């Protein structure tokens, strides 16, 4: 098996990196679009109760639909290829982003808002200097969850013709050649792990002030 994997990389490394590139491209595009949608909407949700309940309901519904089903459900409406896969991944990434953004802003104690106001901050300064920094660990956690979800689901996007590392897995399954499956699966797992560790590090970094609890 190991020999076959090495052989694959010797012969097809160009193809492999092409798949990785496709996978990452799809992932980053989906994450970027979902963040543009979810972060402002989540902030709005923390201010307006109606928006929050709508977002939470929407997120709940999305959670019970399996990712694969969602990909196929979209085919009749938008066909196959990169764009439909992107849309499906964006939709999948929205719930964790929305819920954690709302949570993050709601966790900011009203005390800090009152003190900030009393010290002479206007709305924008309050948001930039107090609310966003304090909500940031939660938001980053949401981005982490969304990213992991996208990386994993992008594998399935191969099914509707978006390419990526899933191609290797499905090729392997089709040819009954486990080499491809292992390479594809391990690569996806490695990307997910990398994303998770990266964000965990980042979250710990922005929460330096919390660690200080132990060092009085």
């Amino acid at each position, binding site marked *: 098996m190991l020999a076959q994997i090495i052989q694959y990389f010797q012969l097809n490394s160009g193809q492999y990196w092409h798949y990785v590139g496709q996978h990452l491209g799809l992932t980053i595009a989906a994450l970027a679009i979902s963040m543009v949608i979810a972060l402002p909407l989540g902030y709005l949700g923390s201010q307006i109760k109606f928006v929050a309940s709508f977002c939470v309901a929407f997120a709940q519904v999305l959670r019970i639909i399996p990712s694969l089903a969602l990909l196929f459900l979209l085919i009749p409406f938008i066909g196959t290829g990169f764009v439909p896969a992107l849309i499906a991944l964006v939709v999948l990434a929205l719930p964790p982003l929305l819920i954690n953004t709302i949570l993050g802003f709601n966790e900011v104690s009203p005390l*800090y808002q*009152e003190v900030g*106001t*009393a*010290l*002479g901050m206007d709305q924008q300064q309050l948001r930039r200097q107090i609310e966003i920094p304090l909500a940031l660990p939660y938001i980053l956690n949401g981005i982490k969850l969304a990213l992991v979800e996208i990386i994993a689901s992008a594998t399935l996007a191969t099914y509707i013709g978006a390419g990526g590392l899933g191609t290797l897995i499905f090729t392997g399954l089709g040819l009954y050649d486990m080499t491809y499956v292992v390479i594809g699966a391990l690569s996806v797992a490695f990307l997910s792990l990398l994303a998770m560790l990266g964000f965990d590090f980042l979250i710990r970094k922005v929460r330096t002030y919390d660690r*200080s609890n132990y060092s009085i």
Partner: protein
Amino acid sequence: MTEATIQFKHVQKRFGDNLVLPDLSFQIKRGEFVTILGTSGSGKTTTLKMINGLWQPSAGEILIDGKNINQLDLVKLRRHMGYVVQQIGLFPHMTIAQNIAVVPKLLQWDQARINARVEELLKLVQLDPNEYANRYPTQLSGGQQQRVGVARALATNPSYVLFDEPFGALDALTREELQGEIKQIHESLTDKTFMFVTHDINEALFLGQRVMVMHQGRIEQFASPAEIVRHPATPFVKKLLGTVRQNQELWREQDE
């Protein structure tokens, strides 16, 4: 007698159906240290929060230096009005130095001036700048945190400082220490008007040059501590003083 710097004229405040302040009028002179003494629900905190416009009066007028507060730019006003609260409210994601620098930064002071001011203020509240400037609030004890809270309120050398039961959550020894320091700070700075809300009668009498006793949204008596002790104006004030006497008696009994 100097002119009134804070003036309430028939101020009324209601929250929904709840009439907290029916009709409040008083004047505070520039440079005065006034304590507002009252039980919970007396409207003392509400009164304080209307001075920096956190809450608006339902009726009546509030004048700051002769100008109606509605005509002032509240954001600008607040930057020159220190504010210290019981829960301290230091921003947890900022270091001590950054917390003190919040208002100077809003006013766009240059960094050198900010650094110098932070150091000066930390020394004023008896914290060693080298040791504390770069710590986070969670690394400090409650008393140390409130020292920083006081330093932050004084950062831009404001003409007014509002205190909302700042020492209410501290242990007795720390509280006494900070009371002494706050009194000394007020004496060392000229022309600073301090408004200090408390429910601790000893604190009110010790700190205030004048004490405003409030009960159910009304002023029971507004006079010097000596005047209040010698001539309590209403049964409520008498009763309040009675609690202290009762305590003293308790002490005496234990001593014998």
